[in-house]
């Protein structure tokens, strides 16, 4: 197990290296705009641009630039400085991180609770009214784009523009350290909006899994032992049906920790997604590199954690 984890961690490093190289090359080979020109202001004169270019190291060959960057990352955990505002990329990402974590984890709680509950009831009461209504709803939930759902929710419930002024509107995010109550109320709508599609997907996934599991031989054994149906479903059925959910949840949370670009934009939440979005618009290479690396890091780590969790869920799995 330990050797397995060590081996996997080594792979994480290799993979991140690879990701950074690809992002770098894409940006280098297909630059959207000259970052030095962007920095130089509205009416740049060539000398200033040249000077900035030199400052940023953009006049060096690409491989030197890349090696310099990777040196910084590996030796000093230094992700460089934003072309845009000269603030450390690392500092900015860490500033934005709490908002993204709040959004991702909160939404995960919402979609897991809803998805598992709805999926279980649907599977047990197959073809009932509840099953049909919730599965149709799930189809809608999966199909609805998150920005449309977000705008709809704001239109309905936001306390500034909404029809029913119940929840805080866009841009009302407050860090938890400042005011936990406000933090909570401001995130309720974003959580549900972000969670909707996931909840729908998880409910369908769990339902179909649980239906399969309930026809397994060991479920028949559990019933033959004289266990109550409730115990058969909860302890024997769900225990097996939940494994793919764990995988999906791990990966989904990992992806969202890298930034939920659409949701953060609609609700104007200052998270990593917004940061990435803005940096792309500004051709801000160090910032893009930083957010991409961060996102990749979360995804790879989530993968690793899921695989380790698997060994605890399923005793047959050995590394």
């Amino acid at each position, binding site marked *: 197990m330990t*050797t397995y984890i*060590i*081996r996997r961690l*080594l792979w994480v490093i290799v993979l991140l290296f690879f990701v950074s190289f690809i992002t770098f090359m894409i940006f280098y080979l297909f630059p959207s705009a000259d970052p030095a020109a962007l920095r130089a202001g509205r009416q740049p004169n060539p000398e200033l641009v040249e000077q900035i270019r030199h400052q940023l190291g953009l006049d060096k060959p690409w491989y030197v630039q890349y090696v310099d960057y990777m040196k910084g990352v590996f030796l000093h955990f230094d992700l460089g400085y934003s072309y845009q505002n000269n603030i450390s990329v690392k500092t900015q990402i860490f500033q934005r991180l709490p908002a993204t974590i709040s959004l991702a984890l909160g939404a995960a709680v919402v979609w897991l609770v809803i998805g598992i509950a709805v999926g279980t009831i649907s599977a047990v009461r197959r073809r009932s009214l509840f099953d049909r209504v919730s599965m149709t709803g799930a189809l809608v939930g999966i199909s609805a784009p998150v920005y449309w759902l977000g705008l709809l929710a704001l239109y309905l419930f936001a306390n500034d523009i909404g029809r029913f002024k119940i929840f805080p509107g866009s841009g009302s995010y407050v860090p938890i350290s400042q005011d936990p109550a406000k933090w909570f109320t401001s995130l309720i709508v974003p959580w549900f909006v972000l969670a909707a599609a996931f909840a729908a997907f998880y409910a369908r996934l769990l339902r179909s899994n649980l239906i399969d599991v309930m026809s397994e031989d060991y479920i028949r054994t559990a019933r033959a032992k004289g266990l109550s149906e409730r115990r058969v479903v909860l302890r024997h059925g769900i225990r097996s049906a939940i494994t793919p959910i764990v995988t999906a949840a791990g990966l989904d949370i990992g992806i969202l920790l890298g930034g939920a670009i659409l949701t953060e934009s609609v609700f104007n939440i200052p998270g990593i997604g917004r940061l990435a979005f803005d940096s792309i618009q500004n051709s801000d290479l160090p910032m893009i590199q930083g957010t991409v690396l961060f996102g990749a890091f979360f995804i790879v780590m989530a993968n690793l954690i899921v695989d380790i969790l698997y060994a605890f869920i399923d005793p047959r799995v050995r590394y």
Partner: protein
Amino acid sequence: MSGEPLVEVRDLVKHFPINRGIILQKQVGAVHAVDGVSFDVMRGESLGIVGETGCGKSTTARLLMRLLDPTSGVIRFEGKDVAKIPRRAFKPFRREIQMIFQDPYSSLNPRKTVGAIIAEPFAIHGLNKGKGERRRAVQELMDLVGLNPEHYNRYPHEFSGGQRQRIGVARALALQPKMIIADEPVSALDVSIQAQILNLLRDLQRDLGLTLILIAHDLSVVRHMCDRVAVMYLGKIVEIADSDTLYRHPRHPYTGALLSAVPVPDPELASRRRRQVLGGDVPSPTNPPPACRFHPRCPKAQDLCHQQEPLLEQKPGGSVAACHFPLSDAEAAERVATAEPV
């Protein structure tokens, strides 16, 4: 039966390595699936290979088909070393040996018609190219195995288990192989259907002069079908003899135990016979017991059995067995329904 063997197997070994390590994997052990097996298969004969799960009988079959490469040892088919067959001569070799599998449900592609499934070997080997010609060949095969040739265009799910196994037999016969390996061909079928398939295989073998290797855990099936039987235990052959000899004068205590365990559908006989129930399970093939591999479960084991490995040798009574203290006829008669009374 002509004198020269169709297949010669010498010291066949197959170990599946077990690897560990962080970056560089190193081998820490091996599953000794087949561990030094030698036998001949004569032209036109039927050889049964029996043993418990994990004894290496299916691995041996896969090695013969060259679906696996042996760790060491030699397999000669018609005198030629199978391992040295060059790539371009490989297809003609594959035509000579065909396999029939246990599960007629999963070994047929559900999206192809029966005609297409049986014709598949033709397509692979570029035979019977004309459409009409191919169809006629397939329908002849279907007729041969007792399927209605008009059902050419049906799909596997429209057939019962027994009929599906017939489809598998037809497919195996398509290329007119010299040898057929049947791996538990009836153990997934209903009892009333098993006899149909066994009779079919036996008739085909006799009529077409096929060589048949039948792999089974059921000793009564093997006795009915095979001229000669090899008993395997933990990757080794422990006894090999022609069927009459083996079933009448079993010499290895393991053969005795296997035969003793077969339930006999005759309550009176069953109550008369003293059943010898083997204790425990087959040991792990990763770490087989030293010397005689059967000694931890053997009722006749003595000190010598865990010190020195017995060699396969001719025993009184006719069979070739690897045992220091073989069963006597009296001991065999006590436990085995088929044994010759003394």
